[in-house]
């Protein structure tokens, strides 16, 4: 999903890649809240999340040139890089699951208006598709993606067989992936 700035100006990551020093601070100003929130959702303690956020930003700055505005929005790319670092950190630490009670009524995702204005089209697509899944599938995907729990931890916490957990995750993500790619293709066809 291409989300380059409407005025044709370069995004903050593209300006970092071009060597513009001010863009690095802009990146912090613009995305530290997002990265911090993602880290807090997956890490058990604030101290762990703080360490992780610093690693994530260093990774973003040094790899800014790999961002392709033709493949994803900048926010989505940053979320992807953040998640990769967090998953690495969790694996190296032997994975420490968050010890929080599972919400009885599921999670409370942001409103459509908030998503549309703050998180972008990919997030809107993901929310709509998640809503179409069975409650058990939704719960597994939320525990995996949002809370960073491993597949075996989810199986233990929910009493769902591990094979079913894995199946729910990959089928659910595959649905989102396929839909985003369809939209990208349609957008590409419309511009050619």
């Amino acid at each position, binding site marked *: 999903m291409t989300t380059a700035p409407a005025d044709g100006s370069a995004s903050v990551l593209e300006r970092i890649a071009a*060597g513009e*020093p001010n863009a*690095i*601070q802009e990146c*912090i100003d613009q995305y*530290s*809240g*997002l990265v*911090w*929130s*993602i880290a*807090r*959702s997956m890490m058990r303690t*604030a*101290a762990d999340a*703080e360490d992780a*956020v*610093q690693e994530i*930003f*260093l990774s973003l*700055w040094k790899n800014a040139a790999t961002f392709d505005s033709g*493949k994803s929005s900048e*926010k*989505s790319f940053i*979320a*992807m890089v953040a*998640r*990769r670092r967090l*998953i690495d950190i*969790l*694996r190296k630490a032997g994975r420490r699951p968050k010890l929080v009670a599972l919400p009885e009524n599921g*999670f*409370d*995702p*942001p409103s459509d208006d*908030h998503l549309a204005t*703050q*998180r972008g089209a*990919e*997030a*809107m*697509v*993901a*929310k709509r598709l*998640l809503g179409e899944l069975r409650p058990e599938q939704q719960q597994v*995907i*939320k525990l*995996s*993606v*949002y809370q960073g729990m491993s*597949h075996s931890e989810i199986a233990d916490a929910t009493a769902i067989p591990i094979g079913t957990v*894995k199946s729910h*995750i*990959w089928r*659910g*993500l*595959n649905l*989102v*992936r396929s839909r*985003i790619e369809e939209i990208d293709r349609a957008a590409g066809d419309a511009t050619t």
Partner: protein
Amino acid sequence: MNAGHERLFELLASRATEGLSASDSQRLESLLEESPQVDAEGFDRAAAAVHLALLGPEMPVPEALKWKLAAASRELVASRHQVEADAAPRRPADRPTPGRPGAFGWWAAAAALVLALAGWWPRLFTATEKTLDEGRTARLPVESLARDPATLRVAWTATEDATAVEASGEVLWNGERQAGYMRIAGLARNDPKQYQYQLWIFDRARDERFPVDGGVFDMPAEGGEVLVPIDAKVAVGEPYLFAITVERPGGVVVSTRERIALLAKAG
């Protein structure tokens, strides 16, 4: 979807959610080579989109983390400048901006500082070291700067300004990296709409009437020790005095030096 694709997608989904073992990573690489038409990052992007969809309103970032990030960014910029400087002839030093002279205040304070420093140093360093968690901070860029033998470390001395009654800490500056930061504890919390703090760096290579602007900053409500990255607006050659003044919101180009909160004399 054939069985090969199903296994490929399972591995991509696992990588995007919990990571892979070394053997699964190898298997994934092999399957991706067999299916070059598959977007290797598709599941990662899908997981990111799901995460963004589930994330509530963004949480406020802790002030200490903001400062650490800013310090890290400055260090990165300085490293880049160093690489560029190594590859190209050095440009002439920036000329100081003409402004209002007012050297007496600085020199009077600096003279007083010479007497005060002898008793301050050991106490300040003891207190500072106690606040460090060596295991955690050793990985931070700011700590790599602190451990660099080329880094100048000078303790702050409080003046009689009301903001600095209980203030202490130190300033660290690395000339090679053109980066540094301040540790400050006990300096009064400020309302940024009323006034802000501003750092000035006196450089032997410059007219003392025109110290280098080291950046404007605030003290947070939480109190305790804070890290403030130094934001020198031009290259600093040989610093001999650091001073923090109380200024109007946004800072000033040339300080009237009416309110000096902290001083640190180097050498």
